[in-house]
Structure formats: structure tokens, C-alpha cells
């Protein structure tokens, strides 16, 4: 059981990082980005290209892939999402981002083909023996990276002027606009930031799973569940929910049966939402119209 808990915490942190970007985007823009899963896979492919063609270490490569995905996110927001009318934003964002998902998936299939890939590094297969358990280095490093990046995100949100603008826009876009916040610019940068987090998530995912362009479909469903459980718009909620989800699944898979691991998680999700419909850390009051 100890192994299940530790595995769950370590992998949950990585999922939380991927989900944090998604929940941030929803909080500011009221956009449900179904493209988040394919951005994770795109991040994995970019890390793969840097590793195989240039010999760049996976973590060092993040210095390139994170800015690259930020730029791609800004581009997608400008090209596809900025034009959505506010009345239909949520519904249309689902369709629009799904279209982006399909486009990127198709491009990846053409460029990289249908073979499965996996990122390789010495820390992807080695582990450290601690407290009677073997803890894989990749999960330890990934967890630390996730905590670090989430910490940076918190710092931006709560220690910078830009972060104050983001929080203002999350509370009330109209009011924020009235006090001089450039809501459109905030939305663009937020989408870029939310997409940039997928570079790190993608690298860890690619180092721990074989992937192809179609791997995104399983990912996005998990990420959506995490942000619903954590509370839409709450980064802390995404972390808590990510860790909680993976711990529940891993412990039940080890102690009871893998067949029940996903089922039990969804039972717990329904119970939590029955008492707290806004999720674990979601805001009680409805957004001002």
C-alpha cells in the first residue's frame, strides 16, 4: 500500500501540472480547452526531437519547449479563441479547441508517423531505494519539477501585477476591464501560460509512457476530471485533485483490484460533488455576469 501512495503522489503531481494550465485557462477565459491533451503530446514530441536530433537532455530541453509551447498557445488563442462571442464562449470553446486537437493530431501523424515513441534518459529507468521501496528517478524529478512550476505559477498569480490582473479577470471580466485591465491581453498570455505547462507535463509523460499522436484522447478525459474535482479555476485544487485521484487509483489497484481503481475514483468524485458541487477548492459564489 505504501508503494501505491507514493506512486500516486509522484504521478499525481505531474498530472496536476498538466491540469493546472487547463484550470487557469478556464478561470480567466471560461474556455474548456480540449486541446490541452494534444499539447501535452506535442510537448512530448518536441522533447523527443530535441533528444534524438540534438542530443539535448530532457530537462534542459524544457528551456526550449516551454517557450515554444507558450508561443503556440498564444497563436492558437489569437487565431481561434479570440473571435468567440462571450455569450456562447463555453460551448463554442469546446468545439473550437476540439478542432485544434484534431488539426494538431493530424499534423503529428503526418510528421512523425504512426510508430510509438518513448523518451529515453538514464533517469527514466533507474530508481533509488528508499524506505523499502524503489522510487523511480523520473517520477521524483517530475514531481519536483511540477511543484517548482506550480510554485512559479502561484508566484506570478499572487506576487505580480500581471497576476493581479489575471485574478481580477477570473473574478469578473467586465469589472476588471472597467478598472483598466486589458482583459484581452490577459487572456492571451494566460492561454499561453496554460499551454506552456504542457511542455513539462509532456516531457514527463513521454519519459514514462510510449506515446503516439492518439495518446492525447486518454489524457484529456483525466485532466478534465481533475479540474472538475479540484474546482474549476483553482490551481491549488488541481494539485490536490491530481494527487488525490492518482493515490486513490494506485492504492486500490495494489490493495484490491485494478478493475475497481477507476470505478472507486468516480464514486468518490460523485460523492464529493454531491456535497461540494463547485469541487474541492472551487469558488462558492457564481461568477458575476
Amino acid at each position: 500500500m505504501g508503494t501505491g501512495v507514493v506512486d500516486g503522489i509522484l504521478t499525481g503531481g505531474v498530472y496536476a501540472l498538466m491540469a493546472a494550465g487547463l484550470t487557469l485557462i478556464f478561470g480567466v477565459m471560461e474556455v474548456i480547452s480540449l486541446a490541452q491533451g494534444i499539447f501535452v503530446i506535442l510537448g512530448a514530441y518536441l522533447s523527443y526531437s530535441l533528444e534524438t536530433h540534438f542530443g539535448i537532455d530532457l530537462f534542459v530541453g524544457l528551456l526550449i519547449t516551454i517557450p515554444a509551447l507558450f508561443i503556440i498557445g498564444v497563436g492558437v488563442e489569437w487565431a481561434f479563441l479570440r473571435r468567440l462571442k462571450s455569450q456562447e464562449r463555453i460551448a463554442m470553446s469546446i468545439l473550437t479547441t476540439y478542432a485544434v486537437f484534431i488539426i494538431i493530431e493530424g499534423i503529428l501523424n503526418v510528421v512523425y508517423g504512426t510508430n510509438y515513441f518513448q523518451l529515453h534518459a538514464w533517469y527514466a529507468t533507474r530508481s533509488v531505494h528508499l524506505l523499502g521501496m524503489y522510487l523511480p528517478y523520473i517520477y521524483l524529478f517530475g514531481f519536483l519539477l511540477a511543484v517548482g512550476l506550480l510554485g512559479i505559477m502561484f508566484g506570478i498569480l499572487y506576487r505580480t501585477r500581471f497576476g493581479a490582473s489575471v485574478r481580477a479577470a477570473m473574478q469578473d471580466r467586465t469589472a476588471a476591464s472597467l478598472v483598466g485591465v486589458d482583459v484581452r491581453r490577459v487572456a492571451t498570455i494566460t492561454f499561453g501560460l496554460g499551454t506552456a505547462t504542457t511542455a513539462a507535463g509532456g516531457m514527463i509523460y513521454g519519459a514514462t509512457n510510449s506515446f503516439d499522436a492518439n495518446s492525447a484522447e486518454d489524457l484529456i478525459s483525466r485532466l478534465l476530471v481533475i479540474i472538475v474535482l479540484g474546482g474549476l479555476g483553482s490551481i491549488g485544487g488541481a494539485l490536490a485533485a491530481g494527487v488525490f485521484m492518482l493515490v486513490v487509483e494506485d492504492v486500490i489497484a495494489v490493495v484490491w483490484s485494478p478493475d475497481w481503481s477507476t470505478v472507486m475514483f468516480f464514486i468518490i468524485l460523485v460523492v464529493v460533488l454531491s456535497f461540494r458541487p463547485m469541487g474541492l477548492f472551487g469558488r462558492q459564489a457564481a461568477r458575476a455576469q
Partner: protein
Amino acid sequence: MGRNSKRTDVVRRGRSKMRRRAYGASSVALAGGLVLAATGSAGASSTGHKAASGSPVTIGISLSLSGDFSADGLNFQRGYNLWAAYQNARGGLLGHPIKLDIVSDASNPTQVVTNYEDLISLKHVPLILGPFSTLLTTPAQKVAHRFGYAFIAGAAGGPAAFAAKYHNYFDVSVPIVGQLLPFAKWITALPKSVRPTTVAYPTSNDPFTQPMVQAAQAVIQKAGIRTVYSKVFPSEVTDFTPIADAVAASNAQVVVLGSVDVPTISAFMQAFEQAHYSPKVMIATAGPDQGSAFSSAVGVSNTGGIMVPNVWFPGVNNALTHTMDRMYLAKYGGSISQISSDTAEAFSAGNALAAAVAGTKSMSNAKIISYLHSGVTIPTVQGPVKFNSIGQTFGGTFVFQWQHGKFVQVLPVAAKGSAKMIFPKPNWGQGG
């Protein structure tokens, strides 16, 4: 989230009318083609290949071009395309060049039903071939049966595919349930001094993997080899680490893994390596048979000793296999060890259809079905096939092992072409 292959009503009706006119106008050409085929067939069978030249005959196929089975689906697509090119170079079907109408089912059992309904009732394709996997073929069978179409599949040998005993259904691959038996028999026949004493059976809850693993488990358990882990995991699991860790904690000397794809086995292998656990023997139901898709995902040095059952491999001594291998390399490049068994399965399904059309000199589905049930033996890339009353074929099953970066046949030990097995499996990173 599957892609929809439907077109607008106007285009569908337009194409339907055009197709009816085309069929009416080509009936005379077809009759002439039949005469030519009958008089010319004796000489054209082995040497003078006469290219197909009449109006095309469309064969409808639903394939998993995206989704969980996409790697297999795309290899299947290659197999069907290669078969169509091969057959067209030999006169097509009764002189008509083959045109494949392949639509994607996104690995979705609901979409595959829609696809075959569209292909048959809207596009009016005269013939169809099967999708990939028992999971998708089983719902699609009902559509084919309802419309009376011959339904030949290449990779749908799970028990569920034969449960309804549809008279129009045929699978050119050996039923999967016994595919691990050569392995089970080998392990139980080992001398006691070297025979493993414990086995783990983690398997996905898939109609392909579970019957195979359970059949092998029954044989191995009966021989007194202890089961230390036996659990089923949902096929939608994305984090295999806790399951693999539990297998590693059992310290089983043998792992029989019910996997449907490369990501599953690669996740288990990585978790085993992280847990410093290397079983003496490891076999998976699928994944290692995917050629370079497997070796590039796990790393060639980790492939050593990994086994997988199958009825075919690219180096098998079969004239049709040699032809397909040559065509594959010419079109797609690479090496023959990279050719997936999916490609051979699809090609074989095409072989069976072509033989039935040629044998009946007709594209009538009713006649094709009767012909395939007549006890005729048909040569295919996977070897000769002969169908029983419920569309099963039987033949040899082999076990293959990765050895020094090559995929070789190792079981049955006495079978022609079997190499010496590497036992025990080398440690991780030392098998390249």
C-alpha cells in the same frame, strides 16, 4: 471522439445514382471480362500477369486510423493497400481493378457499425473486408449479416467473434484462444531443475487477451507451477505503474502479460526495470509483434528474450509472404523485421476474398459465402486457410522471441525454422 465519415445527403445520392449507371453500363463489359477471365485464367495464374482494366470494384473497409488501435489500424491499411496492388497487377477481381474505400472508426465500436452501414446501404459497395480486432469486428458482424455480405476478417479471432456463429463470417487467422499453448507446453515440459516455479498473469480485460492468458494459465497451473499474481486491469488504464509494481513485488519467475499494444508492454517493462525486477521468462499477447514500433519504444537493448505468440512472421518460408515482403519494402522501406503481423493479416483477408471471387467467377456475396464454406483450401500470406462451419481456420501457432535485435521463431521447438530459445531472459539493457 471519432471522426465521422459521412458526407452530405446530396453528394451521397449523387454518387449512388452515378454508381448505378456505371454498373448498368459495365454489365456488358463484365460479361466480356468473365469470358476473358475464364479463357485466360489458366495461363495468367503464375506467369503472365494481366493488369486489371475494367471499371473499378470498390471494397469497403472500416479501420482504426486513430484511437487506441491506430498503430494496428494503419498497419492493416498497409496490408490491404499492398493486397489491392498485388491483386490489380493480376487482373483485379474478374478484370475489375480494386478500389479500397477505407473509412476510420477511431477504434470505436459504435463508429465501426455506422461505417459499415454507410458503406453498404449508402455507398452500396459490392464487397467489404473486416476491421481490426475482435472488439470492433463483433459489432460490425451484425451489420454484414443483416445485409448478407461476406465478412472476412484478418484479426478477430477472439471467442466473442464466433459466439453468434454467423454463417457469413470468416477469420483468416487462427483463433486466438490457443495461441499461448505452445508456450505453456514448453514451460511445463522443462526439466524440474530449471523449470520456473512461479507465474504472474496480469491481463487487460480485452476479448483478445483474456481468453489467451486464461487458457495458458489453466495448463501451467495444472502442471503445478504456482500462480503468485493474477489480476485483470481495465483496458483504459493509463498508469500501469502500480500494477507492474505489484507484479514485481510478487517476484514471479515468469510473467504472462495480456497486452493489446506497445504502450502497455513498454510501461510494464519500464516499471519492472525501475523496480530492479527481471523475470526469467516474459511473454506478452501483443506488442512485441509490432516490429520497430516495439523496439524503438522500449529500446533494442531491452528487447532480448521477450516473447509473443503469432501465426506469422516476415521471414516465414511462404511464396506469398516473400512477395508481400518485397512489395512492402519497395513501398515503405525499412527492413522485413519491421513488417507487422497486422499487415500480413490484412493481406491474407484479401487473398481469401480474391480466391472466392475467382472461384465463383462472381461478386455475389451469397456465392462467396457458399464457396468459402465448401471446404476449399485457400493459399494466403499466413499459410493455407480452410474454414469450418463458423468461419474459423486452424493451423500452426508459433511463439517468437526477440534475440539480439532480431525477431525469431522459437516454438514449437520441433517446428521447421525454430531457433534455440534464449532462456532465461537477459537482464534489462543486456538483450540487444
